[in-house]
């Protein structure tokens, strides 16, 4: 018998090859079979639609007390996000809800909501771990806020046009004080200025929540200004602020927690908890900003709230005083003090002379939903500077002394940075090692005259050559003393580059020319 082992293997190869060829051919047909199958995008679109509806048309849950009033330790009580002011006002969002919603942290549970877990449970819903990106662009304020990741190529999407309800505020300046006779001719050292927040009236005069001033849901901002000009040369201290509540005819003194202490002279931090034990010296103004939760905790819906501020001046002088001078501020009696012919508290109401009314601003809300791996990790800014520091722009390289922090108009937060009066620039090297798809965004605006212009540029070689991003010339639409947002996606030269540099310049400038820069953000995707 001949050996047939070789024979077998050649034959096996032939048979198996035919089988494999057919198999490969058949497998190659599967993608064609799946062409018609697009259920996944449809599903994403439906989820995005649902999330868009919840965010734009629903006030969230719980409603009272509102979910946004829950601090981070109690955030587990929040079951549903919703940004609308109330269920009767779809598409009109509350600024407080927006602020709380976009208060996002990637890791730290005590700072804000955590992406993605906290949001998946409360805004996206469903057991499936969808990934998403929710952004809100405030069209009137040129501001975009985002939670989520970089968009992949394919995602479900919905865009909603909404309005954001602004907050009301009142500034009591010298001309207002004079015209309302708040500056009394009593040459004394102790003065009491009182403010009335009549909740009953505020809630009943205008019933539409979209335009209502509701202190228990939105922040009130009251600034008593121009104090230094009332009697120049006198030293002013803010001795105390007392809160009285009038509820069904009964006055009660409500303690003011340190978390609601006033701000003095434009400071961004409240007076310390040692105040009022140690009275605070005041140069020019005092700002009162109560958290809505504080007002809400007073159960103030049907009550009137009196804020009595005690100023001490030295030497004695004719100062801000609209409250019957009571010998003993420490033991104020509500009825005697506020129901007194000599007391005319400042009324926080719907009169536009008194209070700047809440205004609705246009905004765009976009929701994108997808699943699976995204190219980028949760968006991490490589670099950002909001120029809030007092010595701004300290970590930039100022070309000369002509770049300063700017607290005037325009700025976001506390301050922007200004380039002024002569040709000058600031630069900053931001190594992009390990990152690709570099993007730059910033806000810029100018106040120019003559042949002056401001530029934003980037360099891939540490400043030898510069590439122009944006130039604002005298007379351009952006040359109107306001900040405008700009965003650019940079070419590959910016990727993975330790010498990546940004520069903002003011060219040909003379005295009075100004360029303002704020909120510089450089982002990228890790390799």
């Amino acid at each position, binding site marked *: *018998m001949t050996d*047939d*082992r070789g024979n077998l293997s050649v034959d096996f190869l032939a048979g198996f090859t035919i089988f494999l060829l057919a198999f490969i051919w058949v497998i190659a047909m599967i993608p064609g079979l799946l062409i018609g199958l697009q259920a996944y995008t449809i599903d994403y679109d439906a989820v995005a639609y649902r999330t868009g509806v919840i965010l734009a048309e629903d006030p969230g849950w719980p409603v009272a007390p509102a979910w946004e009033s829950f601090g981070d330790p109690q955030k587990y009580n929040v079951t549903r996000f919703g940004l609308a002011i109330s269920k009767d006002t779809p598409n009109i969002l509350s600024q407080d809800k927006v602020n709380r919603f976009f208060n996002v942290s990637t890791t730290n549970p005590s700072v804000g909501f955590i992406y993605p877990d906290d949001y998946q449970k409360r805004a996206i819903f469903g057991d499936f771990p969808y990934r998403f990106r929710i952004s809100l662009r405030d069209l009137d304020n040129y501001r975009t806020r985002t939670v989520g990741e970089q968009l992949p190529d394919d995602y479900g999407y919905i865009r909603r046009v909404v309005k954001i309800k602004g907050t009301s505020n009142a500034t009591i300046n010298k001309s207002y004080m004079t015209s309302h006779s708040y500056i009394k001719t009593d040459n004394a050292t102790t003065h009491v200025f009182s403010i009335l927040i009549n909740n009953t009236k505020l809630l009943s005069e205008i019933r539409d929540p979209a335009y209502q001033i509701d202190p228990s849901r939105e922040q009130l901002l009251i600034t008593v200004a121009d104090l230094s000009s009332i009697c120049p040369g006198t030293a002013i201290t803010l001795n105390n602020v007392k809160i009285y509540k009038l509820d069904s005819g009964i006055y009660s003194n409500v303690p003011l927690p340190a978390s609601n202490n006033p701000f003095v002279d434009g400071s961004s931090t409240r007076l310390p908890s040692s105040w009022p034990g140690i009275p605070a010296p005041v140069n020019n103004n005092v700002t009162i900003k109560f958290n809505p939760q504080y007002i809400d905790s007073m159960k103030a819906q049907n009550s009137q709230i009196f804020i009595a501020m005690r100023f001490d001046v030295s030497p004695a002088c004719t100062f801000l005083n609209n409250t019957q001078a009571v010998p003993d501020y420490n033991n104020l009696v509500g009825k005697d003090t506020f129901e007194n012919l000599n007391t005319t508290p400042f009324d926080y109401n719907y009169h536009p002379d008194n209070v700047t009314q809440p205004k609705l601003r246009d905004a765009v809300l976009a929701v994108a939903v997808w699943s699976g791996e995204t190219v980028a990790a949760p968006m991490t800014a490589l670099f950002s500077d909001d120029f809030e520091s007092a010595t701004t722009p300290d970590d930039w390289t100022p070309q000369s002394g002509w770049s300063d922090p700017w607290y005037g108009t325009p700025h976001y937060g506390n301050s922007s940075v200004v380039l002024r009066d002569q040709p000058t620039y600031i630069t900053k090297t931001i190594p992009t090692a390990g990152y690709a798809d570099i993007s730059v965004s910033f806000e810029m605006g100018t106040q120019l005259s003559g042949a002056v212009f401001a530029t934003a540029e980037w360099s891939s070689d540490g400043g030898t050559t510069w590439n122009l991003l944006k130039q604002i010339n005298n007379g351009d639409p952006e040359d109107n003393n306001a900040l405008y947002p700009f965003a650019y996606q940079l070419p590959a030269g910016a990727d993975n580059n330790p010498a990546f540099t940004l520069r903002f310049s003011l060219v040909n400038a003379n005295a009075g020319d100004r360029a303002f820069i704020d909120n510089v953000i450089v982002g990228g995707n890790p390799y």
Partner: protein
Amino acid sequence: MAALVTMRINDKGVSEAIGFMLIFGMVIVGIGLVTLYGYPLLLQQQVSADEKIMEKNMIVLQNDIKSLAYKAVPFKETSLKIGGGSLTVYDSSYSTPSSTIEINDNGNNPYIPPFTPGELRYESMSAQTDIALQNGAVVLRRHVEPGSVMLAEPRWFFDSATNTVVFNLIKITSDTIMSKEGIGTVQMRLVGEPSYSAAPPIPNGQAIKLVYTPTPSGGRQDYSVAWDNYIIKTFDNPPYISMTKSGGPPGSGTPVTYTLTNNGSSDMTLVIKIFEVNIKSL
């Protein structure tokens, strides 16, 4: 191998050729059985799948027509696969219409000229089934059975709160005769503004007469049973409307007259809207 051979006990009686023929025969018989029974079953499956898909496709087309008519969108197109048959558009003026609708008042005076809707019809070759999109409804008829079924309803309605009867008539037109098999794109557009007629109010005791004339007896396109069920379901609304039916019976090819008498306390409002949808291409 040698060791293996020696281990075999006895294979003398086994013929290699016969064994091969046995196996070969079994394979052939297997293939034969599959071809005889399995393949027709598969074809059957495919035919009913084609039909199901077309039912859904027709509903998609109906949605397009709804968008054109009720949302006044000027143009719509949908790509679809027409399997196992052909999709044909019959102009409203086609000579043997599958139905003619007349709406008359108490004294048989017409509110509108006799209305022939025209239709988009899918004719399945293998399943012996027609699915038609006519007058805003999707109706199905099997040739082997006498009746017909409405798969998706048109938007005719009676609103009892306002005592209003609304007929939305949709006329399908096309400039040429078109028919399509395989993958096609149905493009349709809304022609002009809808013609709208609100008749004088119909007082208590007076009636509207709706006359449905199907294609003559023996015609394959008789959908009167489906429409009969729909009309009864929609407009027989005691105590507001008392409905009587005369003529027919549905399915016999003879006209059926539905008399809707206003039994409500207030005057009844009749609204007739006619939309024209032009099929640009298939």
